C-alpha cells in the first residue's frame, strides 16, 4: 500500500479522571488521501473532537500516532489549521487583523509586506468578507465570524484543514450558504479536510467519506461510508437523488437505528465530559464547564 497523505494509526487516548484512568479513544485507524474531504459523525461525547484535537496536536495520543506527509505530528502547528465551532476570533482585533496575525506568523520573511496585505485581502475575498475589514468580531454576525475564521485558516495554506462543527451554531440558511462557499473553495483549492458534524445532510453533501464513530468509552471507528456523488454537488438536485437519499438513510440508520450497543448519549456524554473536564478543553459545549475549573485561583482574589 502506498503511504497515504495523512495517517492515524492505532490511536488511543486516556485521560486522568476523578475515578482513575478514562479511556476515551481506542484503536483509531484512518488514512486520508491528499485533497480528500472526510466527515466524522457520531453521538455527542463519543470523542470526535478528541480525534480532531489529536490531529491538530492539541492533545497527545496515549498510544499510536498521526503521520502527515511522512512526518509524525506531536505538537500543534499552522500546517494543521483548525476552524473552531465558536469561530474563536480574537475579539480585540479587527477582521483584517485577525487574518493578519495568522498570515504574519506563516509568511513573514517569505512574502513582502504588500504581498502579505494582498494575500490577506485575497483570502477575505474568498469568503466574501472584504467589505468588513475594519469591523470588530462583535460587530458582525455569527455566519460572518465563521467566514473570517475560515479565511484565517485558509490564509495559512494548511496541509490539512480541521473543522470542529464549523456550522453547528448557525441558523439553517446561513449554514447552507457557508456549506456552498466551502464546497466552492474546496473545489478550487483541493484542501484535505477533516470535519466534525452532527448534521447528516451536511456530512453527505460535503464529504468523500463519512467516518462513523461508536459511542465511548473507548470509542472507535465503527463504519466508513464512501460517498460517490459527482462534484460539483447541488443541494437542490441532490434532495431528489436516490443515491443521496440512500446514503443519508445509511447514516441515520447508524445513528438512530437499533444496534447491539445500547445508545445512551446522555450517560456517555457525562462520563466523557467528566474525564475531559479534568484535563483540557475541547471546542464543544463542554468548554463552558471547563472554564469553571479555574475556581481555585479566583477564590483567592
Amino acid at each position: 500500500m502506498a503511504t497515504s497523505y495523512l495517517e492515524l494509526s492505532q490511536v488511543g487516548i486516556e485521560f486522568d479522571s476523578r475515578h482513575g484512568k478514562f479511556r476515551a479513544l481506542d484503536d483509531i485507524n484512518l488514512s486520508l488521501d491528499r485533497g480528500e474531504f472526510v466527515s466524522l459523525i457520531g453521538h455527542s461525547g463519543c470523542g470526535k473532537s478528541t480525534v480532531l484535537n489529536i490531529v491538530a496536536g492539541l492533545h497527545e495520543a496515549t498510544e499510536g500516532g498521526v503521520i502527515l506527509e511522512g512526518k509524525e505530528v506531536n505538537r500543534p502547528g499552522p500546517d494543521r489549521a483548525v476552524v473552531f465551532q465558536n469561530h474563536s476570533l480574537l475579539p480585540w482585533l479587527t477582521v483584517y487583523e485577525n487574518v493578519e496575525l495568522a498570515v504574519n506568523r506563516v509568511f513573514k520573511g517569505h512574502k513582502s509586506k504588500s504581498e502579505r496585505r494582498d494575500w490577506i485581502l485575497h483570502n477575505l475575498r474568498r469568503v466574501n468578507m472584504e467589505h468588513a475589514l475594519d469591523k470588530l468580531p462583535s460587530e458582525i454576525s455569527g455566519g460572518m465570524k465563521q467566514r473570517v475564521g475560515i479565511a484565517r485558516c485558509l490564509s495559512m495554506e494548511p496541509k490539512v484543514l480541521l473543522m470542529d462543527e464549523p456550522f453547528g451554531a448557525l441558523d439553517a440558511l446561513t449554514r447552507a450558504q457557508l456549506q456552498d462557499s466551502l464546497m466552492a473553495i474546496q473545489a478550487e483549492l483541493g484542501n484535505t479536510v477533516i470535519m466534525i458534524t452532527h448534521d447528516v445532510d451536511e456530512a453527505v453533501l460535503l464529504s468523500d467519506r463519512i467516518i462513523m464513530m461508536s459511542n465511548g468509552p473507548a470509542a472507535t471507528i465503527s463504519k466508513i461510508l464512501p460517498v460517490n456523488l459527482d462534484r460539483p454537488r447541488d443541494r437542490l438536485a441532490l434532495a431528489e437523488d436516490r443515491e443521496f437519499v440512500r446514503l443519508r438513510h445509511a447514516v441515520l440508520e447508524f445513528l438512530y437505528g437499533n444496534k447491539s450497543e445500547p445508545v445512551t448519549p446522555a450517560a456517555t456524554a457525562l462520563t466523557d465530559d467528566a474525564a475531559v473536564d479534568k484535563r483540557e478543553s475541547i471546542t464543544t459545549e463542554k468548554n463552558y464547564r471547563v472554564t469553571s475549573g479555574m475556581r481555585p485561583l479566583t477564590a483567592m482574589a
Partner: protein
Amino acid sequence: MSVTGTMTQPDQRFEQASGRLGKLLPVKTLAPSIIGLVVFLLFWATAAGRIDTSLGQFPGPAMVWEQVQELAKEHRRSREKQAAFYKRQEKRNAAKLAKDPSAEVKIRAYTGQPTFLDQVFTSLYTVAGGFGLATLIAVPVGIICGLNRGLFLALNPIIQLFKPVSPLAWLPLVTMVVSATYVSEDPFFEKSFVNSAITVALCCLWPTLVNTIVGVVSVDKDLINVSRVMALPTSTHIRKILVPAAVPMMFTGLRLSLATGWMVLIAAEMLAQNPGLGKFVWDEFQNGSSQSLSRIMVAVLAIGLIGFALDKLMLLLQRRVSWDKNAVLR
C-alpha cells in the same frame, strides 16, 4: 426590545434605563445628586453647631469655606515671597558680578514652609511613584505567574501571607532599610519620598498582582488553542492574546490598587512625618489653633476629591484601552 430586555441582567437594565434617562433629561439625574449634596450640607451645618471640642466648635461648611480661601491666600503670599526672594538674590548676584566678573555667585533655593497646594502635589507625586513602581512589578509578575503554574504555586503562599498586612506595619522597616541603604550625597529622590512611595507600593502590589494572574489564567481556552494552532511565539502570544484578554481584570486590580494606595499614603505621611497631605493634617492637629479643625476638614475634602478624580482617571484610561465596548464600566 422586550426580548432583549428580559435577557439582560437587572442591574444592566437599570444602567441602560438610567443612561437613557440621562441622555434625554440630564436634569432628572442631576437633581437627586444636588438634593443629596444640599441635604448633606444642611445636616453637616446643624450637627457641627452642636459639637464642641477643646479646639472650639466643630467646623461647619461656612468655616471650612473660609479656610479654603485662607489657604489659597497663604499660597499666593508664599509664592510672592518666593519670587521676591529670587529677585533679591539675582540682583545681589548681578551686582557682585558687575564689581568682579570672576566672583563666585551662590544660588540658594527658597526654603519657605510648603503650602497646602504644595503638600497636595507632593502627595500626588508620591502616590504616582508608589503606584507606578507597584504596577511595574505586579503586571509582569502576574503575567508570568498566570503562565507558569509552578511559579504561581510557589508564590501563592507568599501573596496570601502579605496581602492582608497593612503597609503601615511595614513603614518602620521600610524607613530603617531606606536610611541604611539609600545613601547618596545628592539623592535624586528625597528619602521621605522613597519611604512613602515604597510603603504605597507594598499595598498597591497585591490587588494588581492577584487580578492580573486571574485575568491571565481565565483567558478563554479556545483563544489559547488558536494561538497554539498558529504556533505563535511566546512574545506574540503574550502581546496579542494574553495581555488584551487580561486587560479588564488588570484594570480592576489597578483601580483597587490606586484607591488603597491613596488611602495608605495619607496615613503613612501622618505617621512618618513625610511631606504631603498627611503631614499637613498632622501639623494642623499639633498646632491646635482655633482654625485647625477647619483646615483639617479642608484636607479631608481635598483627599476625597482627589481620590475620586484618580479613580475617574483610571476609568477613562480603562475605556480607552478596553476592547469590550459593551462592558458596563463604572
